[in-house]
């Protein structure tokens, strides 16, 4: 029997949520920014420890704070990907309160934080940022593909 899991991607607009999904599902990337309205749902079947798992990816339109996300989008979610842009401070300035807000809706649901667009900053900056945020985020780049597949699969494994 097929296993189906719902993953919700949240974060500010322009951080690259849709680009991460596009890279993961279609192995493609475009520099052009196209905003998401409402929610875009994609799916991909992956192999997790020998089981075929269909991931339903809910790419929610970016908001400046998690409080603005309609709560019903989280209904039945099995995992969360919180995405921010390492090159734009306003996308991670309130990350702790955003994560707290999401955890209130989704208690016990695994969440992975992705610092996207890491191709735009130096390695040293990422180390500093991890210290400042006191958060172990995964640096990704939808542009180069760095750690994209790994991050989705890591979350899938956490869910199963």
């Amino acid at each position, binding site marked *: 029997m097929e296993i189906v899991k719902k993953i919700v991607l949240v974060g500010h607009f322009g951080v690259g949520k849709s680009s991460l999904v596009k890279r993961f599902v279609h192995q493609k990337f475009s520099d052009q*920014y196209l905003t998401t*309205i409402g929610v*875009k*749902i994609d799916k991909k079947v992956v192999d997790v420890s020998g089981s075929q798992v269909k991931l*339903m990816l809910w790419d929610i339109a970016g908001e400046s704070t998690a409080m603005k996300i309609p709560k019903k989008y989280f209904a039945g979610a099995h995992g969360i990907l919180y995405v921010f842009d390492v090159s734009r401070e306003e996308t991670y300035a309130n990350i702790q309160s955003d994560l707290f807000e999401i955890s209130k809706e989704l208690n016990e649901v695994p969440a992975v934080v992705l610092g996207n667009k890491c191709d735009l900053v130096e390695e040293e900056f990422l180390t500093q940022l991890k*210290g400042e945020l006191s958060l172990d985020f995964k640096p990704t780049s939808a542009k180069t593909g760095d750690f994209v597949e790994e991050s989705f699969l890591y979350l899938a494994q956490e869910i199963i």
Partner: protein
Amino acid sequence: MDLAEIRNREARKSIQVILFDETGAVLESDDTLIKIDTSNFNVYRDTMFCGMETMLADLPYQESISFDCVNTDIAGKTSHYDFLVTKVDEETNRFSWVIHDYGKQYNKIFELQQERNLAEIKAHKAERATLKLKEEKEAIDRLFQELQGNSSSSQYILVKSDNLLVNIDLNEILYFEAYGDYIKVHTPSKMYVTYNTMKSVEVSLPEKQFFRIHRSYIIRLDKIKNIEQLSVEISDKTLPIGKSYKAELVEKIGQL
């Protein structure tokens, strides 16, 4: 043909109704927008409703849940849809699923949203650039004052954090914390991370004001709230005192 008939005929063009049961099996579909193969289509397996079995089962009779502006694929047709799911039969847990195809309308919203988001991203970028320039100017001004002899260089420490040179007033510093190859500089308002070693920071600080209490901590002595057997309290943090540093710390405090 009366007005109601004309209206209903037009509405039917953009609305589809599907009836499904608690397992997600499709019982009926009017196929107005999308052709559904009822023998091989399951709402909980093939659509965005995956994972929502419990939520829908818990819906009270005749209550609905709606999802607006959902860009998804239904049986091979992708568009922007609005969905309305209603529990229509309490005993058998049957649901109606009304699908509105608003692809064209949402494309217009997209243009506005795109423009708004791009404008906001640009505004933030300009704000950041202004702030960076301002901070750099302040740091340069302070350095200039020090070079002119108008200020004591021992009152500030220059750190590189976030690709910025920041001049931190020593009076503001609570403590330094080792962080791998980096140092965290804790002040009441902000924490800075800079590439440096504890040894190098220690020798650059005024001896009377700062003291190394642990392999990983250098504290500002006048910020101590309490000292216990092997810890000090600074601000709301409790920091460990290394055994080898304890005696010297006590002696130092006695001299203050």
